């Protein structure tokens, strides 16, 4: 493991994001004009591993294969089409200004920086806004059936945190259609033999040789065999770590293990505390629940959020004595419209979630638990008619009705915030390269573009920007120096050691033979996260969380029970490996949240708020991305800081009121 140390200790105190020189609007063009390229005959001799087949992974794998690289693509599900990007509903942003409402690349950049509460890197966000338009063109060319107007041109809708309509959509299934577009491009390359697909495989470690990522260790989920794979570069697009909370809108297989593997090999884990609690999810129904369901933010275009104005009405509703429709207009508190007149129901997600929590904590919540608010479409139905509402949101209304057994055309939906997306992730520089050479991280898995809060319809934009238009360029700047490197043997000692470490971990887990199921421990961790590291955080609570997570870790490693065999299909073992890492991430999240003595975006420290209860940043002391560096098992990680220098935008208190 001595080599691992070498790779990380070089720049241990200074973090260099390697941002190109020049004015903001010219950085990306300058970079592309001067970067190194790889010629076609050399591309064929270079192997690239891409872990993940979501929007970022599939688009990167397809684009690099089209260019001529030899790509190995790993997929945890049975097919690349199942990646959780598929569940994104509302839309994708782009600065096309098709609606002639004043949009521009700069405005999309500015809204994203502001939405992220001035905690993202200016240069990356500007590039994101710059390539956004190309994404729409690319997807249309692939046959993505975006919604159109009667004249045949593309339609747009609005999303939170913006005053323009820049969101492109395909019914309430935009993520599905974009993913199927990337999947079809990927499938074309698989058919040609340019991409080798490994489905039902899970990455279990990254292999680092002489300070460079040279492959991965992966488990075949059907046979249970551990296998080794070499590549000249490794790209991880494995998604976010929201399932640390057990209950979230993430898919059941979504996990943060690839991030923990990279972190333990020396890549920095940046801003782990920045997690997005989404305001519009279907409320929790009982203690047997496995998963929470999101209701798209696009619903806030036409739905109005309210709770009863009077506590006695809220109490009567909770007791089942009154219904939402019994309350007269004057007895309803449209609290977002009241507090944020300029943005109303379309405030950013962090603001909307906190406002819902505030009302429910104050005793105005509805539903039998009191942990719900109404999302009401009666105004829109009266104004537009039921058919128009159905054509816009039909599939979402149907989904709601199947789960809750109530008809949202007749009675308001009930919603409550839930864990949804993680802005934090593995630290990457301008080239999307981690602090380990040759190891790249894309999509939700990296920390790059959303700062402390992500705006709606920007996750799809970032995933595809990274995969189609950024990584396929920047990775060449690295690979251009690797053309002399032959395909290395997977018998090298570094592969040997990495596989042994994985096998030892699995053997240790299987040998515990305790009394608790994996899920029961994961659920316990999730409750700690929700209670102490959720929407409202404070010093005392975070310290409690750190103590409690220690207890959970001890319980897990001494009392978990995993049935079955290790070299076999074993779902409980898969889950156990992931939960072991969720425990590590949970601790990092709490640690990061405790360190950050300010409120910004999705990170709300109750001690730091304005008199009106808004997030209060501290730019003096905390205008940095926190980068946590692994310091060995049992040791506290080291905190490194990437200073966020704002050259072009003036930081201010976020204002959605006027």
């Amino acid at each position: 493991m001595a080599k691992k140390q070498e790779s990380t200790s070089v720049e241990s105190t200074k973090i260099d994001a390697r941002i190109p020189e020049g004015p903001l609007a010219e950085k990306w063009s300058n970079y592309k004009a001067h970067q190194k390229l790889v010629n076609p005959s050399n591309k064929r001799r270079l192997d690239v591993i891409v872990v993940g087949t979501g929007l970022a992974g599939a688009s990167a794998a397809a684009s690099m294969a089209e260019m001529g690289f030899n790509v190995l693509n790993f997929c945890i599900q049975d097919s690349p089409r199942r990646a959780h990007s598929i569940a994104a509903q509302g839309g994708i942003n782009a600065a096309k200004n098709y609606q002639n409402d004043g949009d521009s690349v700069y405005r999309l950049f500015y809204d994203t920086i502001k939405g992220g509460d001035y905690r993202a890197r200016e240069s990356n966000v500007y590039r994101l806004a710059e390539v956004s338009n190309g994404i729409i063109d690319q997807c249309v060319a692939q046959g993505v059936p975006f919604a159109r107007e009667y004249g045949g041109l593309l339609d747009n809708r609005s999303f939170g945190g913006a005053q323009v309509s820049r969101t492109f959509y395909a019914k309430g299934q935009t993520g599905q259609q974009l993913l199927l577009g990337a999947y079809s491009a990927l499938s074309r390359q698989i058919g040609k033999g340019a991409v080798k697909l490994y489905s039902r495989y899970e990455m279990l470690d990254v292999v680092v040789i002489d300070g460079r990522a040279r492959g991965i260790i992966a488990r075949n989920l059907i046979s249970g065999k551990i296998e080794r794979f070499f590549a000249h570069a490794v790209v991880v697009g494995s998604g976010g770590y929201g399932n640390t909370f057990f209950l979230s809108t993430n898919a059941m297989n979504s996990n943060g293990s690839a991030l923990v593997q990279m972190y333990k090999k020396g890549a920095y884990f940046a801003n782990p505390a920045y997690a997005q609690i989404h305001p519009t999810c279907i409320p929790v129904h009982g203690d047997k629940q496995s998963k929470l369901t999101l209701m798209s933010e696009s619903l806030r275009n036409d739905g109005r959020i309210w709770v009863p104005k009077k506590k006695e009405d809220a109490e009567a509703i909770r007791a089942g004595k009154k219904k939402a429709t019994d309350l007269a207009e004057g007895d309803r508190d449209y609290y977002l419209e009241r507090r944020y007149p300029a943005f109303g129901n379309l405030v950013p997600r962090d603001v909307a979630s906190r406002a819902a929590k505030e009302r429910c904590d104050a005793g105005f919540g509805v539903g039998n638990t009191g942990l719900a608010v109404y999302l009401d479409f009666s105004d829109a139905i009266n104004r537009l008619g039921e058919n128009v509402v159905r054509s816009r949101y039909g599939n979402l209304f149907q989904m709601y009705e199947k789960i809750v057994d109530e008809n949202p055309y007749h009675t308001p939906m009930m919603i409550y915030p839930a864990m949804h997306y993680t802005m934090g992730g593995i630290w990457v520089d301008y080239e999307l390269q981690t602090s380990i050479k040759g190891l790249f991280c894309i999509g939700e898995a990296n920390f790059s573009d959303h700062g402390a809060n992500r705006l709606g319809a920007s996750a799809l934009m970032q995933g595809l920007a990274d995969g189609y238009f950024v990584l396929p360029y920047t990775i060449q700047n690295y690979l251009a120096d690797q053309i002399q490197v032959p395909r290395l043997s997977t018998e090298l000692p570094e592969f040997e050691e990495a596989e042994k470490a994985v096998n030892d971990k699995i053997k240790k887990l299987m040998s515990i033979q305790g009394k608790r199921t994996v899920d029961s421990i994961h659920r316990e961790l999730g409750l700690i996260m929700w209670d102490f590291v959720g929407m409202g955080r404070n010093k005392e609570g975070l310290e409690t969380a750190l103590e409690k997570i220690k207890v959970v870790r001890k319980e897990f490693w001494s009392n978990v029970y995993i049935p079955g065999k290790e070299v076999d299909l074993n779902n409980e073992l898969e889950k156990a490996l992931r939960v072991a890492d969720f425990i590590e991430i949970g601790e990092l999240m709490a640690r990061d949240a405790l360190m950050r003595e300010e409120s910004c975006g999705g990170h709300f420290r109750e001690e730091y708020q304005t008199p009106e209860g808004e997030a209060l940043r501290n730019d003096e002391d905390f205008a940095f991305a926190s980068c946590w560096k692994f310091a060995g098992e049992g040791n506290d990680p080291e905190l490194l800081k990437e200073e966020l220098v704002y050259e072009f935008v003036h930081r201010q208190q976020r204002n959605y009121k006027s």
Partner: protein
Amino acid sequence: MEKSINVTLKIWRQASAKIKGKFEIYKMDNVSTDSSFLEMIDELNEQLVNEHKEPIAFDHDCREGICGMCSMYINGQPHGPDGEITTCQLHMRNFKDGETITVEPWRSAAFPVIRDLMVDRSAYDKIIQAGGFISVNTGGVPDGNAIAISKVAADEAMDAASCIGCGACAAACKNGSAMLFVAAKVSQLALLPQGKVEASHRAKMMVAKMDELGFGNCTNTGACEAECPKNVSISHIARLNREYLCAKFKD
């Protein structure tokens, strides 16, 4: 309103494709009617693990009806008795107290069983790899608004594109045909000007791959449409046939 019911589950257990399977009986008491079918299976698995028994292997992921991974045959119907949903969206309120529920994997020659309720649907991926795409590389494409597409065509393409690739159509078909799956993709891309260029070639390649992989022929029984969780219409099969005939005439 939430209440709880007791049910008896008759579940197909099979260690691998080569080992003979059989039904096992499990009793589940006090199941909340607000639970989804998969949450009920989670609960059963939790019990089995606590009894140191092998949990039931089943495919699932997004749990909101869009990834297409869940794939159970429940009481003789793919995705169970409720309409327009996947198994993960099926709720226990659709079952009666005391009911016996039979759960099997997809039964189709082209989808071999991996274990218990898990099957191998990679055949669907192979069909897409054979031609279910528009041949464009990243970059160098025209502006998204360069070609106007009528709202009617875009909407119809969207309906076809709603397919989640779950395999219910082939599992429901007495011939084990994948025609609805293939037709949905062929139709989506044939309806759009950018996909029109390759439309007949695409149909030919995808149908040839479907035949090669052991899927049966279509005899228009309509079971696929009735069981499709996304309501994909068999009218797309007519469009596939048209494109396929065009391709044959050109040959």
